[in-house]
């Protein structure tokens, strides 16, 4: 908190926060124009419109720090003249044809500045930059509308940090360029949409808006230019233009809906407004106030919504008749479900039925699904897909610190002095979160260490990139821990005050010597010591990890080892430090939080706890089973063994995403009755007896919980397509057919009930989640939330964390003939098997199919080139896929993205081997043999894919180059010069 006084336009003002002069003036409601400045980007200093006088000198207020006793003039005639000169230059670059512009939606900052400054004419005529409009299927750039503010460049370079855009200040007429002046589609652009989001006008605009947003903007190209000319030639001053275009903009408000939602893809939890015209999605508009993402999106969140209106959507229930389905009415489908569920329950007992919830669905839907299983059917056979990914991470945290969630928020990761990423392809899997890591490293010098077997983007950028042998992370983590303890670098005070079981744990580290670690992990001693030294030198360390850690036979133990290391070094209980298991799906956190687990009620209370059970029995008016049920993995085995006869599964393509899918699909075939509820006819649907058409996130209300434990509301954007229904309505109807008497009218009522029962969410309510408001659990009854998870104690006996000794589980071993290690995971562009993202023509155009990444060494050895088709065969199945030769993978390690449900689907190769503590499949422990099927073929990755681009890193927009141009004079200097001439 700063306290001093300044004088603004002759009036004394108190300064209480350190900020730029522009921010201060804005806070004080002193109007100063600004065009290049954006609160989420900071000062860019290109437009000069925010010039004011400080102590008699002209300065750009956006980049001027306010100091004690400053005398600020904003009303001075010289100031106004300088601002007009700047604005006139802007208008020389931007043609004001507002009424026929798709960006005329009340938010065009040039339009608004012209109005506010009461500008009626411009002196510098608009002229073309003699460069054509650039476009791809996502967005377009019109150089003749570009004011060269550089916001897009700033966002691309320093927020998204893809580093594709620059302004070429050396051109006679500067403009934005991609890479080294490539067409957009041949550049490194990842189509994240930051540029179009921050553009103050229509220069950089989503193609979905073109010709659609305005009433008059849909003219054919031939008529548009004369129309603009007429508008400009007849105008007698900009007031008329502004008045008419304001009226037209107001009319748009009537037909364009702007609705807040939360992204349905990864676990970052991006929130944004969706602009719709009827069912047509015009654009995604992120808002600075969105707590997790601010102005950021990735290509999927910004442009991946075509699936909502896909012709392939399920719109009617389907009922199996022999080897085919027929469309049916809801009544008939519900009748059949009621009849079958009742009969199976009666004949074979409640535990012969099982329920699988989805991380794609809302918290409220997860709650209802487990309530249906427990309260209506009477079984704890309920699980969700976090079983496939993050259960081991949760286990590791439960064991050590008591809560299975991120220690802080994305802001904590951003401010961490040292960020260690282990087994996480976060730039592709959690793109927006990764931007914060990249930005922190690029602008603020935070250190990044990456441990991975593949050189993904973050690995390339890392200060230290180490490549441990697959599945050996526990060994090097324990060796680092032991080395630090041996050096006396552990945090004794923290251990004394906050941690139990220290001595036993220290003893358990004995085997993890540097020599042992070098032997088992392939890391060098220097690398291990370097990691230890970095942790010691950093005041705060955050560890991010994902499937590269968890999807192993010892995934829970490795997650535990991470938490142990953080405890030993005192990296909990402070901002910028802690454990960050990066959640993969939009609501993978919430699906478990709300009780879709075989052993826990909502809020992670045990089903075996009599008091807890009694609480739920009283509330629901039923008797509840006290024994934990089956998890997903156990369900498959139980079906094979004839113990499980009916499954109700929603929003999960288990038949393609579970490991060893030949085995899983064989299990489905054995079910007596199988209900699948989904948005599309998935692979799993093919085995169903009844398929129920569900509505995706844009067609319902509810809440998601992101990786930061953050509750956010999604509002219904569109009506459900056809006869599809939101999952919560379907579950309620099924429950009521089975005797429940539920009468929820809105998901908020479900949340109220859950909050009443689960202490972890006691204070959560829709009222506190209005708009972009959010809450991070635990949420106390009074609504106080917990951004930093551990502040004074850990939620374990006597408030102390526990150091939990673990032993290394060696990865699965294979016969010698299986010599290729098949790494697998996500791609930026497609989400999982791609049943949502392949519906986007734009995304599919860039990345039409799955491909196998092969190292240069392996390619040379086996005669493989881009486009060569190979077959990989493991003991469990085989896949056929075309190759891409790349230096992202090494030696005999290959990378097979999971984005297909066809013959290249990774889970035809994987086994049923699983994490010993959570049954999470060991997807990452798979070796295969490889045969070349077709030596030559078309490359599976078009040259328009961003991976072939050539980024041009720089800090920001490089405005100094603009200032150095011969034709540039600072408007303040120009005014001073003229005043001096006037005064002789």
């Amino acid at each position, binding site marked *: 908190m700063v306290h001093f006084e300044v004088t603004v336009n002759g009036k004394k003002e108190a300064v209480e926060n350190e900020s730029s002069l522009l921010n201060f003036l804005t806070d004080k409601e002193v109007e100063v124009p600004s065009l290049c400045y954006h609160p989420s980007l900071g000062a860019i200093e290109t437009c000069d419109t925010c010039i004011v006088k400080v102590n008699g000198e002209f300065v750009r207020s956006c980049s001027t720090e306010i100091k004690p006793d400053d005398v600020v003039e904003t009303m001075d005639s010289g100031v*106004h003249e300088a601002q007009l000169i700047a604005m006139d230059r802007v208008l020389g670059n931007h043609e004001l044809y507002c009424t026929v512009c798709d960006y005329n939606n009340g938010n065009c900052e040039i339009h608004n500045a012209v109005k506010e400054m009461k500008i009626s004419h411009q002196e510098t005529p608009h002229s073309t930059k003699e460069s054509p409009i650039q476009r791809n299927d996502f967005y377009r750039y019109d150089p003749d509308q570009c004011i060269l503010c550089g916001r897009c460049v700033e966002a691309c370079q320093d927020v998204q940090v893809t580093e594709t855009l620059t302004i070429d200040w050396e051109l006679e007429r500067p403009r934005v360029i991609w890479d080294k002046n490539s067409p957009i589609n041949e550049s490194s652009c990842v189509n994240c949409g930051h540029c179009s989001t921050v553009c103050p006008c229509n220069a950089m605009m989503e193609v979905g808006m073109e010709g659609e947003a305005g009433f008059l903007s849909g003219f054919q190209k031939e008529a548009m230019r004369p129309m603009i000319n007429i508008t400009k030639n007849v105008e007698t001053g900009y*007031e008329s233009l502004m008045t*008419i275009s304001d009226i037209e903009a107001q009319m748009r408000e009537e037909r364009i809906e702007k609705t807040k939602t939360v992204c349905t893809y990864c676990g970052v939890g991006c929130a944004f407004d969706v602009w719709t015209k009827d069912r047509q999605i015009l654009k995604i508009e992120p808002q600075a106030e969105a707590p997790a993402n601010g102005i950021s999106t990735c290509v999927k969140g910004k442009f991946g919504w075509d699936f909502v209106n896909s012709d392939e959507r399920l719109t009617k229930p389907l009922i199996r008749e022999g080897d085919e389905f027929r469309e049916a009415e809801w009544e008939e489908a519900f009748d059949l479900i009621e009849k079958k569920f009742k009969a199976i329950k009666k004949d074979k007992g409640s535990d012969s039925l099982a329920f699988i919830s989805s991380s794609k669905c809302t918290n409220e839907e997860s709650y209802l699904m487990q309530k249906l299983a427990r309260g209506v059917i009477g079984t704890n056979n309920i699980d969700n897909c976090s079983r496939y990914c993050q259960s081991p991470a949760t286990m590791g945290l439960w064991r050590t610190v008591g809560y299975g969630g991120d220690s802080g928020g994305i802001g904590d990761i951003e401010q961490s002095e040292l960020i260690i990423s282990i087994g996480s392809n976060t730039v592709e899997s959690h793109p927006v979160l990764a931007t914060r890591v990249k930005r922190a490293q690029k602008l603020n010098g935070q250190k990044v260490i990456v441990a991975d077997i593949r050189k993904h983007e973050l690995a390339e950028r890392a200060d230290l990139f180490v490549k441990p042998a697959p599945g050996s992370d526990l060994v090097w983590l324990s060796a680092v821990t032991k080395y630090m303890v041996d050096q006396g670098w552990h945090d004794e005070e923290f251990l004394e005050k906050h941690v139990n079981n220290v001595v036993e744990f220290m003893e358990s580290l004995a085997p993890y010597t540097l020599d042992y670690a070098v032997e088992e992990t392939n890391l060098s001693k220097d690398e291990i010591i370097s990691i230890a030294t970095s942790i010691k030198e950093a005041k705060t360390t955050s560890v991010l990890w994902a499937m590269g850690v968890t999807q192993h036979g010892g995934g829970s133990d490795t997650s535990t080892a991470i938490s142990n290391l953080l405890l030993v070094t005192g990296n909990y209980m402070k901002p910028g430090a802690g454990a960050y298991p990066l959640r993969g799906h939009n609501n993978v956190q919430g699906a478990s939080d709300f009780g879709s687990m075989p052993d826990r009620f909502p809020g992670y209370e045990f089903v075996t706890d009599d008091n807890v059970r009694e609480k739920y029995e009283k509330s629901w008016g039923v008797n509840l089973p006290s024994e934990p049920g089956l998890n997903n993995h156990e369900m498959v085995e139980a079906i094979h063994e004839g113990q499980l006869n009916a499954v109700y599964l929603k929003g999960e393509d288990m038949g393609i995403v579970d490991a060893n899918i030949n085995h899983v699909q064989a299990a489905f075939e054995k079910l007596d009755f199988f209900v699948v509820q989904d948005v599309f006819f998935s692979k799993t649907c093919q085995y169903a007896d009844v398929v129920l058409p569900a509505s995706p996130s844009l067609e319902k209300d509810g809440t998601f919980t992101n990786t930061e434990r953050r509750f956010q509301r999604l509002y219904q954007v569109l009506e459900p397509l056809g006869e599809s229904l939101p999952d919560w309505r379907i579950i309620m109807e099924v429950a009521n057919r089975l005797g429940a008497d539920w009468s929820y009218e809105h998901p908020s009522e479900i949340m109220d009930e859950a909050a009443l029962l689960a202490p972890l969410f006691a204070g959560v309510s829709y009222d506190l989640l209005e708009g972009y408001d959010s809450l991070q659990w635990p949420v106390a009854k009074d609504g106080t939330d917990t951004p930093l998870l551990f502040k004074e104690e850990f939620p374990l006996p006597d408030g102390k964390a526990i150091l939990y000794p673990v032993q290394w589980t060696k990865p699965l071993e294979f016969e010698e003939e299986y010599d290729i290690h098949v790494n697998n995971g996500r791609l930026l562009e497609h989400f999982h098997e791609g049943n949502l993202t392949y519906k986007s023509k734009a995304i599919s155009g860039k990345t039409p199919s799955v491909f196998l990444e092969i190292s240069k060494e392996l390619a040379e050895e086996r005669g493989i080139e881009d486009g060569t088709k190979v077959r990989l065969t493991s003991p469990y199945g085989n896949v056929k896929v075309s190759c891409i030769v790349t230096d992202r993978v090494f030696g005999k390690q290959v990378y097979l993205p999971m984005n297909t449900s066809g013959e290249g689907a990774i889970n035809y190769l994987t086994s049923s081997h699983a994490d010993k503590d959570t049954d999470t499949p060991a997807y990452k422990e798979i070796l295969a043999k490889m045969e070349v099927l077709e030596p030559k073929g078309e490359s599976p990755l078009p040259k328009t894919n961003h991976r072939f681009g050539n980024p041009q890193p720089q800090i920001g927009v490089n405005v100094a180059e603009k200032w150095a141009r011969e034709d540039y004079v600072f408007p303040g200097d120009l005014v001073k010069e003229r005043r001096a001439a006037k005064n002789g």
Partner: protein
Amino acid sequence: MAKATTVIRKMEVDPEEKRKEDLRELEDVLLDNKEGITDLLKLLQRFQHKEVFHMAESMLGQSDKILERVVISMDHPEVTQSIKNMLLLAQALGKLKMDELEPVIHKVNAAVENIAEYEHNHNKGSYLSILSTLKDKEVMQGMNVMLALVKGFGIREEDGGKESIDENERPARLSDIPERDRPDTPSHESNPQKSSKWVYFIGGAVAVAVPLLFRKRQY
């Protein structure tokens, strides 16, 4: 034992049943809006009578080409200048002070009557009669009015404008800043404008209304 299948038989909707249902829905809508629809039908009959529909259909059918022709023909200096002049004229009318102008108009009318009478009587004047006329009270009055008029023409525009400009209003464009204080940028506009939004609105609305008629839905 359920084998995987991708065969889906679509539900066959009986066309007759569907038709009946649609008709029933339409019937309900008609009955609910009986009065309005009856009035509308009367209006439509008149349109029909006047061939409005055929004309509209033809125009809409060819809307892209018609619009292109219209805007291309309008995008011509004479046309845009004439539209602009109309807007400026309307704006100029707005500046006239009719209250003060009215007595002057009476005077002009009286003068016209005198001229007509003079022409009608074919009176021959002489220098003496001119001099004697100077003594006439009405002539003196008239000359004073004429002198005031001449004086008014002599007032500079900037000085005349001063009275009506708000002292606190800041210049809204570079040309409003005194020449010597401005950067060396070419100026191609010279008429200072005061806001007359209603004029702009009407002018703009006319410009906007024409293309709206031809707007083609793109989706």
